């Protein structure tokens, strides 16, 4: 489990992270989202015990990064956007080297198990320089898991991976959650975060601007609705305007018209909208609610935080 408690980090006059607090429980994936320079990497480095907080503290598996960063580091597996491998080494030699840095007495079976898990068993005695980008990232993940850490920090782990490899990585991260690890995923990839994260923490300019369950953030705000109709666009727009409904968007699909609006009181607003459209001679094919993507929610939250 990770507990970030009111952490601030300054670099000279620049505040990279300001009074940040959040929790990642065991068996949970939390996505730390934010624009470039928002403070995500600073946060992950503080949690990893390689950067001390200026104020506040982070508790990893019950240990304070301030009081005992060495023991914190022993409980964390860190994967960065770049695989960061010693490429002249073979995979076996590389994993053995890190296993020894983490004081594993007989790492052989663990290394074989990890190579197998990552699908790299046939390549275990090959030099890392000969690996593809995806294989290198898998090797980096194997390195992060070699000491079986209860906490994983994944900083943009899918950068530059092809879709197939991204999907494999996603499956792997989900399976690690099933092993009751606490996983913090720092990412720009909102689609990825939407697919696998249980909760989301959004950080902007060093401050946490929103935190919540992924689905909760997506459904926050006024619900949005979409009607697919057969009608003249001008007449349909005029009908909705006469019913006091603001149209958010109009598109055409297979010759049909798709209209979008939001409603604070869906039962009342949607009834009024349908009545107005039918009175204007429109033929209604479907009316459905639309859930925002995490991307829409994220962009809205960032916009709000800057106003």
């Amino acid at each position, binding site marked *: 489990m990770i507990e970030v408690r009111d952490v601030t980090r300054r*670099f000279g006059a620049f505040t990279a992270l300001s009074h940040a607090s959040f929790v990642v429980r065991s068996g949970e994936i939390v996505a730390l989202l934010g624009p470039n320079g928002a403070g995500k990497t600073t946060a992950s*480095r503080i949690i*990893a*015990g*390689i*950067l*001390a907080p200026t104020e506040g503290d982070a508790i990893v598996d019950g240990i304070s990064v301030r009081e005992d960063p*060495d*023991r914190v*580091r*022993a409980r*964390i597996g*860190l994967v*960065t956007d*770049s695989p*960061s*491998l*010693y490429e*002249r*080494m073979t995979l076996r030699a590389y994993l053995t*080297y*890190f296993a*020894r*840095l*983490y*004081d594993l007495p007989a790492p052989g079976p663990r290394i074989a198990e990890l190579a197998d898990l990552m699908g790299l068993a046939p390549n275990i005695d090959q030099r890392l320089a000969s690996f593809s980008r995806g294989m290198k990232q898998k090797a*980096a993940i194997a*390195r*992060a898991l070699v000491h079986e850490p209860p906490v994983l920090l994944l900083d943009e782990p899918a950068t530059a991976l092809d879709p197939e490899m991204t999907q494999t990585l996603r499956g792997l991260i989900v399976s690690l959650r099933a092993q009751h690890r606490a996983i913090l995923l720092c990412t720009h990839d909102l689609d990825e975060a939407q697919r696998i994260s249980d909760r989301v923490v959004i950080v902007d300019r060093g401050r946490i601007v929103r935190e919540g369950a992924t689905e909760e953030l997506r459904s926050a705000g006024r619900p949005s609705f979409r009607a697919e109709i057969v009608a003249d666009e001008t007449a349909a727009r005029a009908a909705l305007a006469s019913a006091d409904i603001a149209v958010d968007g109009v598109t055409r699909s297979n010759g049909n018209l798709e209209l979008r609006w939001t409603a604070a009181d869906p039962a009342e607003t949607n009834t009024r909208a349908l009545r107005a459209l039918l009175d204007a001679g429109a033929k209604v094919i479907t009316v459905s609610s639309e859930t925002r993507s995490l991307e829409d929610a994220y962009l809205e939250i960032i916009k709000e935080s800057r106003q």
Partner: protein
Amino acid sequence: MLARREIVEQYSDRGAAFRALFFVALPIALIFLNRGTGGRNPDPVLLIFALQAALLPTATAINAAAGSFAAEKEAQTLVPLLAAPIRDIDIVAGKLMAVLLPAAGLAIVSLAAYYTAASIVFGQERVERLLTPTTLYGLFALAVFFIMTVGAWVMVVSARVGSQRTAQQIAGFVLGGLIVALSAIGSLIQNLPAELVIGVVVAVLVSDLVALELARRFWNREEAVARL
């Protein structure tokens, strides 16, 4: 363990092995090329080349140190290392050992090869009289101090620059200047007052201490991560 990985990594590069051979072979070649130099008294020439035989292999430490620090920073391989549960001082000490041990070993090989070659060209009796065990130990000790200076200063430079090549170039200029200065002192050594020679040795030692302290400060985890 850290030092062993670094040494294997550095010397698995053919270029590094060739460079090491070149620096060992150079003083030997100079001995054969200058066999007539010095007329009836070749002792100063023998001493200057002995000094070079001890110091030239230390040039390999530039590549080793730049490779160990700047290249690792450039390739971003430092982050996983810094994330491991090892102390800052272990990382710095491991890397310094990886710079020191091979270069010191090479200095021993170079001095031994030089001693043999000089005995063949100038006669064993003369070389035995001139390069006594005390002189050879002194030359070796100077080489070790020199490697430490190079290693520590390259560490300092590497913390400040963005690439391995820049670190090598800056450190190379510094080292080249030092070797020229030491060779000049070596050639004049018979005419120099003892105080000046002692002063130079003290200056090298002070430089070692300053560089090691700066390197320790620049390469603590916080500083290193902040500069990545």
